[in-house]
Each structure stands twice: as structure tokens, then as C-alpha cells.
């Protein structure tokens, strides 16, 4: 699954990253997979939220088949 990245993660890793997810997964699995590939960003990922289909996702189980888009949301800083 292609995961969208933003802010410092997009600039340093790229605007998307491919992550293998099980047919049933938790949002925290997505962060863990990115952390495993890029341990340098553990601190940023720890502070980040996961958005599934453009909504902030609680860390509950999702079915991959029901999901269109996943994004990592680092701490926001608009305004």
C-alpha cells in the first residue's frame, strides 16, 4: 500500500512510501513499518497521527480492502 507522507517526512523520505500491510491492520502498524525502514524518524513518527481516507484514525483494526488512502500526519503547524 502506498502511504502518503507530508512535512519533514515527505521532504526527506519522499511524498509516498510503500508499506506491506496485512488484510487486517492497525494504524500503528503503518507507523511501525515506516519506522523499521527509516529508524531516524522514530521521534517524528511517535508524534504523528495516521489518517485513513482523510480522517484521523483511532488505533482500531481496519480491513485493508475497505481502505483507499492512508497518510501519516506529523504534528500540524498551520496558522
Amino acid at each position: 500500500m502506498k502511504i502518503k507522507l507530508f512535512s519533514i517526512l515527505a521532504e526527506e523520505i519522499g511524498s509516498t512510501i510503500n508499506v506491506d500491510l496485512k488484510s487486517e491492520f492497525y494504524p500503528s502498524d503503518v507507523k511501525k513499518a515506516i519506522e523499521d525502514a527509516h529508524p531516524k524518524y522514530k521521534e517524528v513518527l511517535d508524534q504523528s497521527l495516521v489518517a485513513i481516507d482523510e480522517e484521523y484514525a483511532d488505533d482500531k483494526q481496519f480491513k485493508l480492502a475497505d481502505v483507499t488512502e492512508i497518510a501519516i500526519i506529523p504534528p500540524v503547524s498551520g496558522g
Partner: protein
Amino acid sequence: MKIQITHEPINTEELTKSLIHNEYGGVDIFIGNIRQFTGDIETEKIEYTTYKQMAEKEMQKLADKVIAKGMDVVMVHRVGELQLGDIAVFIGVAAPHRAEAFENCQFLIDELKHTVPIWKKEYDRDKIRWGGLED
């Protein structure tokens, strides 16, 4: 009601006029612009990026809470590279009375800063800082 993320400069006069209606007696506006100094740190420019579709959805959710109370709302955030003095955000609330206008305008800008996926990359004289993250 207007919710928008834009690359273009924000036209404050036009947005303000759009909030003037006969049923509302007060309009409160918050304008956020690029500040030069934060303590000893001197900022040269800020680059804003966004997850646009989600950001506009999150802004809409906030606006809906205020609109449900019988007010009108404008929320516009600019993204891209902004220079000192450029306007980054415009929040306007039109309400029957001023107290509600003040209160809800503050609510919208405070919540925008917490929930709307927009990020700043601050080019300071000493180094680059990413908003929201510890140095």
C-alpha cells in the same frame, strides 16, 4: 460561508465584505501573518504545505460547528512560500452580537492550529525549523 486552501495572496477586503449581512451585527476577524522575530530567532520566510483534501474537510468540520450556532464563517489558509508580512491565514466570524463573534473566531483559529493538516517549514537566520516539532 467560505473554506479554502489557496496558493494565491489572501484578499482580506473581499473576504471581510462577504461577512457583512443584515442579520449579523458583528464581524470578528483574525489575520495571521509572517512574523520576523520570535524572541531572538529571526525568520526570513515560511513555506507552508498541506494535505489539501483532508485540510479542507477538517476546516469544514470546524466551520460547521459555528454555523450550526447561527453564524457565518470564512476560513482561508494560504500555502506555498510566504515572505515576511504576507498573510497566511484569515478567519472571520459574523454573528448577531460581538461576544459570539470574538469567542468563535478564537475557537476556529485555535482549533485550526491543532487539527488541520497544514505544516510550516520556517527558514530562520540560524537554521531551518519544522513547525510542530521540537528543535
